[in-house]
């Protein structure tokens, strides 16, 4: 290793010394890694190996799944496949396209973010800025958030059907269109699917926003108060702009989670086949994830449709993974800042 030329008298030297200290301090957490017994303790080496193998196996499975899908899906992908609809036959390898599904999925998640981000962010603001951490109401809200995160996705589907479609939609039909026999609101629609997904992804947004709010130095808030700002002004003009990356992460994670979910939209809006794109809040839509399900379980000839099936999966994976990677990058930035602050 190159020896550092430390010149404590000069500014350059001081800086170097400080950097070196900082590096040491940063490593402090992992100090134990550097304290090692000499010699090898065989059982320990063996079990370390076992655990490393478990880790390797998980990574191997992940790699195998992704590699298999990409390898088989690459051939079926083309610009025409991504940007055209399947007007005639969605099982025809040469004509099928997934544009309506991409459009439907994108529309439902964008609509969802409109509902989920405001509510999620405000809840997170309440939990970090206003609530005292010991009050019963805070604990109940936290419990509700945790429980919401654990409710099975199919139950959200039932909820969407029972609450949004039958109850809310049914009542809206009775109120606004009492003369129409055919239900307008009280049937599966993109609006209800989005609302159902918004309820489902609420915890994702809350948790991510909370994390980023907590990563903001208290000094900033205090500085703002010291300058005479009120609490609301401080939150709106100092805290929230700082927390923006975290809010974005939450939104992206929610979108990526929702984009891949199929169970909640099975009864709330997804259509097996539609000749046109959804044109209003009350129309149904075709969906990428649901299309993967349809192609893999209801195809008339699974061997023949395999290329479009794989290609559809690739499109879905690329969509959700690209979003995930962005979210992970932003989040690691937020976490680094938080660590640096501590």
């Amino acid at each position: 290793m190159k020896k550092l030329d430390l010149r404590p008298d000069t500014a350059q030297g001081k800086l170097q010394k400080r950097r070196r200290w900082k590096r040491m301090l940063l490593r402090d957490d992992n100090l134990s890694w550097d304290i090692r017994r000499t010699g090898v303790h065989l059982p320990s080496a063996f079990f370390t190996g076992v655990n490393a193998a478990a880790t390797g196996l998980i990574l191997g499975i992940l790699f195998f799944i992704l590699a298999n899908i990409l390898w088989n899906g690459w051939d079926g992908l083309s610009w025409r496949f991504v940007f055209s609809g399947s007007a005639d036959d969605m099982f025809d390898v040469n004509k099928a396209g997934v544009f309506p599904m991409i459009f439907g999925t994108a529309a439902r998640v964008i609509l969802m973010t409109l509902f989920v981000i405001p509510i999620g962010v405000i809840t997170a603001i309440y939990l970090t800025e206003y609530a005292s951490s010991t009050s019963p109401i805070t604990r109940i809200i936290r419990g509700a958030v945790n429980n919401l995160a654990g409710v099975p996705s199919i139950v959200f589907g039932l909820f969407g059907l029972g609450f949004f479609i039958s109850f809310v939609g049914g009542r809206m039909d009775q109120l606004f269109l009492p003369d129409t026999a055919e239900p307008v609101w009280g049937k599966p629609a993109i609006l209800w699917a989005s609302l159902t997904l918004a309820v489902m992804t609420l915890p994702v947004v809350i948790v991510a926003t909370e994390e980023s709010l907590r990563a903001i130095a208290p000094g900033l808030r205090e500085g703002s108060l010291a300058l005479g700002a009120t609490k609301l002004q401080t939150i709106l003009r100092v805290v929230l702009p700082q927390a923006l990356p975290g809010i974005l992460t939450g939104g992206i994670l929610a979108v990526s989670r929702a984009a891949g979910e199929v169970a909640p939209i099975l009864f709330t809006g997804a259509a097996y086949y539609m000749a046109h794109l959804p044109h209003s809040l009350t129309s149904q839509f075709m969906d990428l994830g649901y299309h993967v399900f349809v192609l893999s379980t209801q195809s008339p000839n699974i061997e023949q449709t395999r290329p479009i099936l794989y290609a559809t999966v690739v499109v879905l994976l690329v969509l959700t993974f690209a979003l995930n990677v962005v979210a992970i990058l932003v989040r690691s930035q937020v976490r680094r800042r938080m660590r640096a602050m501590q």
Partner: protein
Amino acid sequence: MLAADPASPRATDWSTIRRGVKARPVEWLAERGILLVSLSTIVMVFLIFLFVGREALPVVLGHLNAARVQEVIPPEKMEAVPAEQLRAYLGLTAAEFARMDKETLRLLMEIKVEEHAALPDDKDARLNTTDWRYLLGPHQWTDYQKPEYIWQPVSQVPKYNLVPLIIGSLKTTLIALLFSVPLALGAAIYVSQLAPPKLKEYIKPAIEMLSGIPSVVLGFFALIVMASVLQAIFGYQYRLNAFVAGLALGFAVIPVVFSISEDALTSVPRSYVQAALAVGSTKWQAAWGIVLPAALPGVFAAVVLGFGRAIGETMIVLMASGNASIVSWNIFESTRTMTATIAAELAETVVGGPHYRLLFLIGALLFIVTFLSNMAGDLIMHRLKSRLEGKK
């Protein structure tokens, strides 16, 4: 630590600061508004329970009569019967009923009489099969040799026994946990205690990526790739079975168990390990003998939450389990889970009918089970953390 720890005095102070509240009504309004919006999570959990439970309630209370052969009301007695009872008898909605004139109703009643004449004169057809006795206990149906548990909602006499579905769910969940918990726990120990710090920074996000794969993609993978490969290896008879579904389900559970147990292991104070290393133990001995026992409740919480995730997963089991409702503990036989049953059958049911309500009942059961397992998991995790932090 000040910012991250809500319990630290400075952070609590901030939450009690209410500058501007008295002078400016906007501040006061905003505070109330924010509180109101944040209550929406509680409202949502409550609404989910209410609206899933509401549809299932008649079954729970035994108010539903699903017997195929019921008391026939002769068309001549139409006038004598109260309107509401007539509507229920004909199976009409209120709006439909209001639109129909006497003639149509009479016609419908005549059709009903003919229908009943065409029904088989089967003793089973007179049973209310949504009674708890038939939902959970075995019954000897006509043409069966012995009492059996049967889920057969679409047949002459619909049979709604939940036992095959519960066994199916437990079977796949158990396989998933047996497969994923050792793997995920091993990886968590490795990442949090043994791995070089550099490597750790890459492994953790990679395993978390696994949770980013949509469940329908895992289901597709299990159906198209894994089912054939595993059948070639093990040589069992049915291509789609509980084993394939359980393994694929395991992939979905691994990230859950991994990140929670990793969290628990990491929250064990560093000083424990340092003390162990100082008296000459290896890193593995410190991890196995000191850190793991200290974090054991957290590992348990991880398993509980993993269970909740596995039993509620829908698309994977719907696509890979084969969906035959058989009572059998053989893992190489096709199986049907509670979630897959809802997903596969709800679209074809009559709204408000016995089948529809039964599926909501299954949903309510799932909700309760996951609700309890989440509560238990969170409680354990919370206690563990406060204990470890208190000791620090």
